[in-house]
C-alpha cells in the first residue's frame, strides 16, 4: 500500500492528503457544485481516476488490460460509426463510397444520424462562419472516444475559399483533426484509405481498453 499512486484532478477530488480510509478517498464524489458544470470529458476524467486508483491499488489493472485491450481495440477499429453529415461536394463522394461500387460498409462504417451514437466526425466541405458554432456543438455532443477526419482541401485549409470573407481556414482551427484526406473532391478510394489510416492510428495510439489508462 505504500506504493499507491493516486491520480486525479485536484479540482474534482477532495482530501488528497487527508487521513481517510483508502476506499473513501478513492471513490469520493466530486464536490456538489461541480455537477452543475460538469462536462463529459470532466466526468470521464473523474471516472477514469476512480477506476484507475482502485485498479492500481488492487493490482487488477495489468490483468484487466491484458485481457480486454485486444477486444476493445478490435471493436473500436472495426466499427467507426461516422456522423451522417454533409457540407458540400465531398458529401457526394461520401455517399458514393457507400454505394455498391466501393461499399464502405465492409470496413464497419455505419452512418448514424445522431452525434450521440457516433465515433467519427467527417468534415467534408468548407466551414463557413455561420456553420462553425454548429459543427463545434456536434463535435462536443459526440461521446468519447471520438475522432475527426478532415476530408478535402476545404476542410484542411479552406481550399479555394481560403481568403473568403466567411469561410474558416481549415477545420483544425477549432476542432482537433486526426486524419487529413487531400483531394478536390476526395475520391471514395481516398476516403477508404483515410479510414484505414484511422484504423491504423487507433491500433497504434489508442489504448482501446476497458481501463483507459
Amino acid at each position: 500500500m505504500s506504493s499507491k499512486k493516486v491520480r486525479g484532478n485536484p479540482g474534482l477530488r477532495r482530501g488528497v492528503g487527508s487521513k481517510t480510509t483508502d476506499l473513501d478517498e478513492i471513490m469520493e464524489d466530486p464536490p456538489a457544485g461541480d455537477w452543475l458544470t460538469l462536462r463529459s470529458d470532466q466526468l470521464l476524467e473523474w471516472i477514469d481516476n476512480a477506476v484507475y486508483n482502485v485498479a492500481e491499488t488492487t493490482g487488477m489493472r495489468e490483468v484487466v488490460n491484458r485481457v480486454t485491450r485486444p477486444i476493445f481495440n478490435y471493436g473500436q477499429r472495426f466499427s467507426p460509426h461516422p456522423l451522417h453529415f454533409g457540407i458540400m461536394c465531398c458529401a457526394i463522394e461520401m455517399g458514393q463510397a457507400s454505394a455498391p461500387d466501393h461499399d464502405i460498409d465492409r470496413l464497419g462504417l455505419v452512418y448514424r444520424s445522431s452525434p450521440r451514437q457516433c465515433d467519427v466526425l467527417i468534415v467534408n466541405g468548407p466551414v463557413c462562419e455561420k456553420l462553425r458554432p454548429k459543427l463545434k456543438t456536434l463535435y462536443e455532443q459526440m461521446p468519447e472516444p471520438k475522432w475527426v477526419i478532415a476530408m478535402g482541401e476545404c476542410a484542411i485549409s479552406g481550399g479555394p475559399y481560403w481568403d473568403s470573407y466567411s469561410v474558416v481556414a481549415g477545420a483544425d482551427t477549432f476542432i482537433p483533426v486526426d486524419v487529413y484526406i487531400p483531394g478536390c473532391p476526395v475520391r471514395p478510394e481516398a476516403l477508404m484509405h483515410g479510414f484505414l489510416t484511422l484504423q491504423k492510428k487507433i491500433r497504434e495510439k489508442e489504448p482501446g481498453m476497458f481501463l483507459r489508462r
Partner: protein
Amino acid sequence: MEIKELMQELSALKGVSNASMIRDNVVKLDIDKNSSKEFFTKLRDDFGFEHCSLITAIDNQPEFELVYHFTSVNKSVTVGSTDMSVMMEAHVFLERDTPTIESISDLWGGANWHEREAFDLMGIYFVGHPDLRRVLLPEGFAGHPLRKDYVYEIHEEEW
C-alpha cells in the same frame, strides 16, 4: 393580348422608361425609384405577374442597380402565334449614398428572403420589410461583402 400591347401598356405607366424586348417573351423596363411600389402593385394586380422570381443587386460603381424578375404563369400572352407565359425584367437604379427602396415583400411573399439577401450581401435597405436581418452571414458581421469597395484585411494579416 399581344406581347407588343403588353409592352406598350407597361411603358405607359408612371415612372417607366426604356422599354425593350430581351427575347420574344421577356420585357425589360427601367423604373424610377420613387414610383416603384406603385408600379409593382399595378404589375401584380392589373397585369397578373404573380411570381417574383428573383431580386438581384449589382454594384456598378458608383450607383447600385436592382434587377427584379417577374413571371406571369397563368396569364397567356400571344407571342408570334403561340400563347405562352411571359417574363418581365425591371431595373431600378439607386444612388450610393441612399441605397433604400420600398419593400415589395407584402406583395410577393417570396421577395422576403431575396430582399434579406440583397441587404445582407450588398447593403440595400428595403423600407417596410417586416424582418430585415442577415440571412447568409452570421449576426454581427461587419459590412456588406459583395460591395466593390468592401475590404477584407484579416487574411492579409494571417497569410
